[in-house]
Each structure stands twice: as C-alpha cells, then as structure tokens.
C-alpha cells in the first residue's frame, strides 16, 4: 500500500503501544498542569483571596468544619445570619464542598503539612479542574478513542466556559461538581456498555457525592433516565441497560436521601419522578421480556404486550393523580422557570434578579466556547453516524444542555463538557483522516493529468487542463456534494468504499489549518481567563494612566472597619448580595444574605431601603439594626452598585406590600429611571437614594456632582439624613456605612430633634410673627 510520507517499518508493535501509552500519560499530566496553571491568574494578579459572594459562606462553613469537627458543623445553628431568625446551616447546605476541603485539610495536617484552610479552599477549584480533565478523557475515550479523549481533556482544561466557575479562589459548589458530573456520566456509560453492576454502583456513589455537593444534581437525575428512555423507545432494551440503570437508581436514590437537605425529595417531588418512572418502566419491560422467553403462544404474547402498555399508562396516570392531589410536589420555581421562561420574573423576582439567571446572548457563547461552538454540531453529527448506545447519550445531552445554556447564563457550565467532548470527537476524526499516511488506490481517470502520488515538486499541468479542472471542481461540489454526503453517511451495506487522502499538500493544508485554530483557541482562552474571569470582585482593579495596575480595595477596607470599630453584636443591614461577605469578613450579624430562603425577610429589607426615612426607621429599630451598608459606585463608575439594583429591591418589596411600594413611583413621569433633578419624589426620598448621595456634592466643592455610572448630575441640593448618621465611607466611596440613631432621649422624633439642633426651629418660626402682623 502506498503511503503519503515515509513511515518507519522496523518498530515492533509493542514499542508503538508502550510509547503511545507513555505519551498519553505525559500529555494528560501536562494538560492537568495547564488546567491548574491557567486558573492561577487570580492569585497572581491579585492575591490568594476568596472570591465573590457565595464562596465566602462556603469558606466560613469550612472554617467551622475544620476547627470544630464534623459533628459541630452538622449541628451548626448560625444565629448571626437572617437576624433575628437564624439559620440551621447543617440542614440547609450541600455539605460536599466543605467536607472535601475538610478532608484535604486534615489529610495534609496528618502529614505534618501545616497548610492554612484558606489556601486549601482557594486551590480546591484548580485542583479539581485537573480531575475534570481526566474524567473527560475517560468519558471521551468511551465515545471514540484515546486521542479524542486527550483533545477533550485539553479543551475542558482551558475552555473559558468552565474556567469562569473554577478559578483559584472561586470556592463554590460548581468547583467540584463538574468533575463529579463527568465522572458519574463516565461510570454510567461504562456500566451501560458492560452491563456491569459494579460500574452502576460507582455511578451511584459519585451521584451521591454530586447530590451532596451541588443543587444541579437534578441534571444527572434527569439525564440518565432520559437516556434510558430513549434507548427503550428505540428498541434497544437489553439486560445491560437493565442492570446498569437499576443498580444506579436503587443505590443512588437511597444514598442521596441521606443528605439532610435532600431528604425525601427523591420520592416526593416532580424533578425526581422521571427517574422513578423510568425505573418502573424498565421493570415492566424486563418482566415482559422474561415471560416472553418462557411462553410461546402468539396470542399470549400479544396479551402480554397489551398488559404492559396498560400498566405503563396506568402508572403515568398515577403520577398525574398524585401530583394533582398534592402528594408529589410540583416543579420548584427554579426548575419550572427553565421551561416557562416568563414565570420567574412574574412570581419569583428574587430568582429573576440574579444576574447569572439571565438568558445568554450569542457573544457569551462565543466568548466561553470559541471555535468549539461550531465544531460541536459536527461532532454530534459524527455521533449520529455511528450511533452506539453511548452516542445517544451525547446527542441527548447536547440538545438538553444547549437549551438550558440559552435560558440561563449560569447553565453554560453544564453545556461546556459536552461541547468539549463532541468537538474533540470531530477534530480527532478530522486529524485521524488527514494524518493517516495510507493512500487509496487512485481511480483510473482519463482527464486526470496529475499522478496520484503527486509530490510538491511535480510541475503544474498545462494552463487549459487546470482551467478545465477548476471548472469541473467548481461545479463538482455543488452538484455532487450532497450526493457524496448522503453516500458517505448512509452507505452501510456492501463492500466498504475506498477511503483516504491523496498527496501530502492536502494533508498539510488541513492539519495546518486545524493546528492554527487550536493555537488561536489557546490564545483566546488565556486572554479571556486573565481579563474576564479572574477578578475576585472583592478586590477590583483599574489601570493607572501609565498602564500599571491600580487595586481598589474598598470592600475589605469597609468590612475590616466594621470588624474593628463596631461591637460584636451590632446588626448590619445591607442588600442580600453582601450578606455572606459581611458575615465572612466583618463577622457581624446580617438581616439577609445570599441564601435567599426567606422572601419576606428580603422584602422587608427592600421596603426599608425603598421607603422614606420616617417609614424605614421603625423597621430598622424593630430589627435591631445598628448599621446600614450600601454600595455606591457613582464616584468611580462601579456599575454593580445598589442604585442599579434598586429596582429589584422595589420589585421584591412590592411583591409583599403592593399597597405601600409601587414600582412606577420610582420612575419619572416619562418612565425613565433617573437620579438627577428630574427624579421622582419617591425616588429622592427613598433611604437608598439618600444614603447613596449623602454629601456627594461636597466632593465637588459645592457644585452638583456627576454620577459616573448613570452619567447624570445629581441635584444641587443634596439629600439630608435625620434618622441615620454617616459612620464610614471607603476610599473610593464604594462602601458607605451609616449608623442608625437611637431614639431621642427627650422623646422627640428625630427629625424635629435634628432641626432643633441645627437651629432651624427659629427659622421656621420666623414667618409666624409676620403672619400675625398681617392679621
């Protein structure tokens, strides 16, 4: 057989095999290294710090676990959160993440490595991303082969869609969840392929770990049954499927019920009913198969078929009936809003208000997946070409996940693994085809001037011949492309058609093009990771005029001020976004935090923020609030501040007190959201507005200040505060803390007391004598 380039022939197959396996190990360890390294931008650019909001709670809980032990953590009642209600942390948390870092911490200390628990938490996500790369390699290996697996591992290692949730310091449930997701799927595929109860049990164990780690476990709970159902409908029922599914479901469900936060949900909520239903269906089908092998009568088999269908329909009706009677809880709002996309905005504004629950525009997809976004459909088509049982899984996964990723930015995370797998299948098939040195026998074609093994030195054919060829080629693809495509995809029977690439240049062109796309992908990922996804958002960065980095550290400045200067039991009120940070960094009780379980409590805070001082003051006093904390970005142009979130506070408050808070009142009559002179009266009188712009004009020497986020001039007369006192304002004014005044000792209301103190009483009384004079 002719080859396009010389290949050595004196190597024994064993050597090839050993070298390949060594290279695979080296490649995998390099990929792990790259995956970890690219997540360290956050530590290098800033410092080893816990990021964002939720990680601060996880970190705080982990510290409790590490210092006091597991039982203390399990029974931990946190009286400082949701003041005055408190929170039963042990029963309302997915403990997988904390337990994982606790185990690592204790293991390292057992080895006499005195690592700080914070560093364990910061480095957990990068560490697990290396494991994710390995799990993806194993998964893709089952789809195609090792080389596709290596590509997939490399993709998942550096793809921004996954990095966005797993940079160093982003200590959140997703950090370990994606590894568990991929590994559970791998075990499931393995169990299905081999009909192995052992791998089914592994899948169940890792499913349990996933349930303990992330609320997104419901994705697995529905993906595996969906796969089983699809196989069933396609007539691919086998004892392998039965063994794999049954062992996974039975063990996995029992195990998942051990997590207190999940409890009896697997048998009582709609999210889990699909898995239960498919479990029942498989039992019926397996029973029918068994009976059929023992009974020969045609009529009896028909009867059996009818009975099976009837039982299936009856079972489905039983689910509907139980849901209707309230025995099975209907879909929870969070899941339901994935299907009925308008639902959340209308009924659960708290869920709709979170920025990561917004729908995804196409630039986000391209930013997070780059060229994988279009090689992925090609990979899915290749899965259709072979269509083994495991390929059906990838196909279902790709459809479901791309819908979910479109509905919520956050679910891009679940789409990313399947995109990496499918793209790796496509690219490795492409590279396999074009690197393979064997050349097919050339067709004896009369008008084909160039010899089959035309090397680069062959003289080009004559002018007319090349023109003719070009013309033929121009019409050829359009005319025959589809025909070839159909032939290539549907030809199954008969002798295999000869297949291969002629010549070296065609190979080089395609391989070079693919390699440059991969290189571009690496540059893209590095840029996106370092610029977009490595900001801790606790510490902000901007650039000085000379291009050097300027660190804005207002949050920590303010939280440490609280920690140092206020009594330990003083209650701080802020919008719920900052609850975990205040608890974690300032160690002060908060009214509401990011665990948004009590809508009324959040609405209370929203009401206090959006009503006037007189209305808000009793609320503040009733909740023992000592300090109110607002985030204000108007001075340096930090757009994620409270004034921009204000409308959500209004909306959430309106949901509970529709008579007292009405959203339209916060707009100008023209329906604009403004903070300048034209702002509505309600807006100007709201506590949030007053706290944000209090003394803002003084910075501008008495001239009206300019809000750099809204690009508007604030009114010349700045707001005044009677019931609150400014306690602290951070360097760039991002965090402002106000102290709530105690009741006036003389029993006056604070407004008149304030006016008396300022000497305004006399001014106000001036007109009175004049009026008397007129009379």
């Amino acid at each position, binding site marked *: 057989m002719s080859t396009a380039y010389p290949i050595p022939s004196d190597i024994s197959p064993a050597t090839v095999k050993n070298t390949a396996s060594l290279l695979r190990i080296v490649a995998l360890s390099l990929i792990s290294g790259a995956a970890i390294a690219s997540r360290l931008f956050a530590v290098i650019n800033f410092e080893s710090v816990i990021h964002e909001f939720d990680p601060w709670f996880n970190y705080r809980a982990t510290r409790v676990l590490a210092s006091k032990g597991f039982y203390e953590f399990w029974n931990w009642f946190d009286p400082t959160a949701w003041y005055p209600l408190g929170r039963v942390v042990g029963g309302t948390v997915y403990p997988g993440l904390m337990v994982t870092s606790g185990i690592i911490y204790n293991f390292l200390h057992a080895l006499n490595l005195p690592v700080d628990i914070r560093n364990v938490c910061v480095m957990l996500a990068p560490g697990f991303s290396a494991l994710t790369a390995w799990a993806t390699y194993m998964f893709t290996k089952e789809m195609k082969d090792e080389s596709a697996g290596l590509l997939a591992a490399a993709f998942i290692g550096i793809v921004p869609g996954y990095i966005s949730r797993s940079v160093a310091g982003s200590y959140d449930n997703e950090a370990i969840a994606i590894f568990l997701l991929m590994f559970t799927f791998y075990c499931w595929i393995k169990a299905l392929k081999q009909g192995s109860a052992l791998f089914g049990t592994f899948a169940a164990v890792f499913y349990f770990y996933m349930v303990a780690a992330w609320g997104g476990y419901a994705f697995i709970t529905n993906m595996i049954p969906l796969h089983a159902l699809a196989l069933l409908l396609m007539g691919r029922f086998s004892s392998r499927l039965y063994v794999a599914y049954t062992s996974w479901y039975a063990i996995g469900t029992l195990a998942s019920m051990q997590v207190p936060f999940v409890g009896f949900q697997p048998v009582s909520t709609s999210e889990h009913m699909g898995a239960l239903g498919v479990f029942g269906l498989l039992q019926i089908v397996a029973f029918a198969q068994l009976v059929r092998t023992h009974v020969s009568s045609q009529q009896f088999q028909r009867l059996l078929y009818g009975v099976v269908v009837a039982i299936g329909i009856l079972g489905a009706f039983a689910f509907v009936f139980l849901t209707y009677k309230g025995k099975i809880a209907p879909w929870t709002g969070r899941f339901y809003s994935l299907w009925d996309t308008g639902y959340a905005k209308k009924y659960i504004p708290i869920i709709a208000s979170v920025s990561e629950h917004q729908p995804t525009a196409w630039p986000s997809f391209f930013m997070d997946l780059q060229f994988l976004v279009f090689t992925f*459909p090609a990979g899915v088509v290749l899965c259709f070409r072979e269509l083994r049982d495991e390929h059906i899984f990838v196909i279902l996964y790709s459809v479901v996940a791309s819908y979910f990723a479109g509905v919520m930015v956050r679910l891009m995370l679940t789409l990313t693994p399947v995109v990496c797998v499918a793209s790796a299948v496509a690219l490795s098939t492409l590279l396999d085809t074009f690197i393979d040195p064997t050349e097919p026998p*050339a067709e004896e074609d009369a008008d084909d001037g160039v010899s089959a093994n035309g090397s680069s030195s062959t003289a080009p054919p004559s002018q007319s011949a090349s023109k003719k060829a070009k013309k033929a080629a121009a019409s050829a693809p359009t005319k025959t492309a589809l025909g070839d495509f159909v032939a290539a995809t549907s030809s199954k029977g008969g002798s295999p058609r000869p*297949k291969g690439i002629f010549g070296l240049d065609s190979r080089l062109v395609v391989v070079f093009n693919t390699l440059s796309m991969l290189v571009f992908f690496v540059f893209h990922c590095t840029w996106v990771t370092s610029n977009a996804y490595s900001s801790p958002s606790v510490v902000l960065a901007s650039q000085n005029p000379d291009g050097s980095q300027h660190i804005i550290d207002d949050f920590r400045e303010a939280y440490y001020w609280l920690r140092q200067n206020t009594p330990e039991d003083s209650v701080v009120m802020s919008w719920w976004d900052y609850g975990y940070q205040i608890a974690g960094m300032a160690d002060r009780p908060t009214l509401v935090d990011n665990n948004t379980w009590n809508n009324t409590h959040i609405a209370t805070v929203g009401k206090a923020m959006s009503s006037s001082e007189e209305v808000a003051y009793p609320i503040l006093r009733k909740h023992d609030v000592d300090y109110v904390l607002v985030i204000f970005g108007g001075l340096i142009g930090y757009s994620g501040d409270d004034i921009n979130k204000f409308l959500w506070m209004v909306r959430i408050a309106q949901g509970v007190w529709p008579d007292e808070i009405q959203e339209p009142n916060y707009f100008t009559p023209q329906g604009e959201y403004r903070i300048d002179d034209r702002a509505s009266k309600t807006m100007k009188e709201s506590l949030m507005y007053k706290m944000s712009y209090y003394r803002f004009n003084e910075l501008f020497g008495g001239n009206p200040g300019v809000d750099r986020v809204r690009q508007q001039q604030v009114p010349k007369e700045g707001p005044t505060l009677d019931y609150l006192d400014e306690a602290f304002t951070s360097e760039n004014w991002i965090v402002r803390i106000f102290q709530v005044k105690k009741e006036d000792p003389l029993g006056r209301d604070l407004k008149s007391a304030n006016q008396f103190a300022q000497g305004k009483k006399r001014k106000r009384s001036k007109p009175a004598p004049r009026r008397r004079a007129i009379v």
Partner: protein
Amino acid sequence: MKAVFIAALLSLPSCLALTPQQQLSQLASAGGGLIKLNADTFGLLTSPKRTWSASIQFTALDPRRRCNPCKEFNPSWGTVAKAWANAPPHARQDHFFATLDFDDAGGVFQKLGLNSAPLVFNYPPTEGDRKPSSGNTSPTKYDFSDGFEARPLADYLSKFTPVPIPYKDPIDWASWITIVIGVLGSLLCLRFIAPIVQNKWFWAAGTVITSLVMTSGYMFTRIRGSPYNGGDGSWIAGGYQNQFGQEVQVVAFIYGLLSFAFLMLILVVPYQTSPQRQRIQVYLWTGVTMIVYSVLVSLFRVKNRGYPFKLFL
C-alpha cells in the same frame, strides 16, 4: 351604549330616592357590569365618602383621538368587567367597573392632570369596613408592564375587590383544533411518516439545528423580546450582553456553514476517488473555514470592543 343612557335617564327620577350605591349598581347592571361615566357620575362614583371601591379605565376610544393602545386594551377591560358581573350579588355592590372616555368628560382628565391613555385607577373605599388599614385612600395606578391581556389585569384587580374576580380565560379553540387536527393528521399519515421518523438523519438534522439556534442566542431574543433589527437598518445590537433577532439567523448560519465545512472534510472528501477533485475540495473547504471564521471573529469584535485578536478580516 344608547340603552345605557336611556336606562340612566329613566333611573334619574328614582335616583332621588336611592342611595348613591344603589344608583351605581343600577348603572352597572344596565351596562352589563360596566358603568360608562360622564363628569357627574364620575363625581358620584369617586365621592370622598364612599363605602365601595371602583376600578376606572381612562381612555379615548374615539377614532379621531388615534389612541391605538386604548382600542387594544378596551376588550380586555370589557371582559374583566363582564366577569365581575357574575360575582355574587352582595360583593358586586361593593366594587364597580367604569370607563371614562376623554370625549365624555375631558374636564376630569384635566382635573386629575392626566395626559395619557389608557390608564386604570383603583379607588379604594374611604369608609366602611373595607377601608384600607393603612389609611391611604388615594387611587393606585395599574402598571401595564404585563401587557394589555385580561389575565394579569384580573389578577391585579382581584386584590382590590371584595372577592376575587371570577375571571376565566377564554378557551383558545383555534389552537386546540390545530393540535387535534395535527395529531389526527399525523396518525393518519403514520405510514408515510414512519420512514422519516425512523431515519436517524432526520433526528440528526433536528438536533443540529436545535443546538445551532440555541447557541446563537435564540432564547435570549425570546425571553427579552428583542426586536428583529434596529429599525434603522442596523442589525447588530450594541453591547456584549444584547442582540437582535436577525443576529440569531446570521450567527446560526455562520456556525452551520463552519460545521458543514468540517463535516465535508471528514465525511465526503476522503471518499473521493479522483485525486484532483479531492484536492480541490480540500482547498475549497479549508478556504471556506478560514474566511467564514474570520468573518465570525470580526463580528465578535463588533460586539466585544476590547477583543484583541483578529484573523484575516
């Protein structure tokens, strides 16, 4: 409408003997649950001493006023008001639905300082046991952010009525009939459809088109209700987290073309038996990939100004 006026006129003499609330219920039952107001009856309905509540639509239905939203909203208002007419009689007397047209009582519009229509105001009772506990008896405005449909309106107004409005969504016969015909039709044609449904490439096309459309931000335009294009001919929405409907089509097409080029290289090119034809196809599809990819990257640069990389374009 004439009948209403006649009824109102006829009831005038008896008005002297009736309490305002009885007058209003007579007017309401005469108008089928909806009172058509003029300046006088408006005063009567919103009198400062009222034990009843009222929902009033301020509108301008006369074609000369060219108020299209008014015409759009009026039917919803009518159906909700009619639904209230079926409420239990004792509750029906405590809440009234009314419409005030600009051409009937322009003075009221001026007095209230209204310069737009349609508007819906709710007047809570100022006396009696249904008086709001907060003591705030000023009218509240209905927010049209949920659109002009009857269902959200009924839900909102039910908060102010003594009992919830017995409103039921009309059955959407058209869509039900379409579904039934569709199901029956496909059952009848099952024999002809079966080969298509059983063909895996049918499903492959469905899968690929779904994922292409979804990754092009189709759900974003659905949920946010983005316009198809900018109106002034521009079809690229400014900003990174924003897009128009046309972008979905363009981007999905680009993705699809690139995927197709890859598939051609993988599935079709190796089976060519003529070296010359194969070479040209290789160059063709590689060229397509390079050029279309450059277009895609430049499109992304428009959306994300800070993006530092570019290809040939």
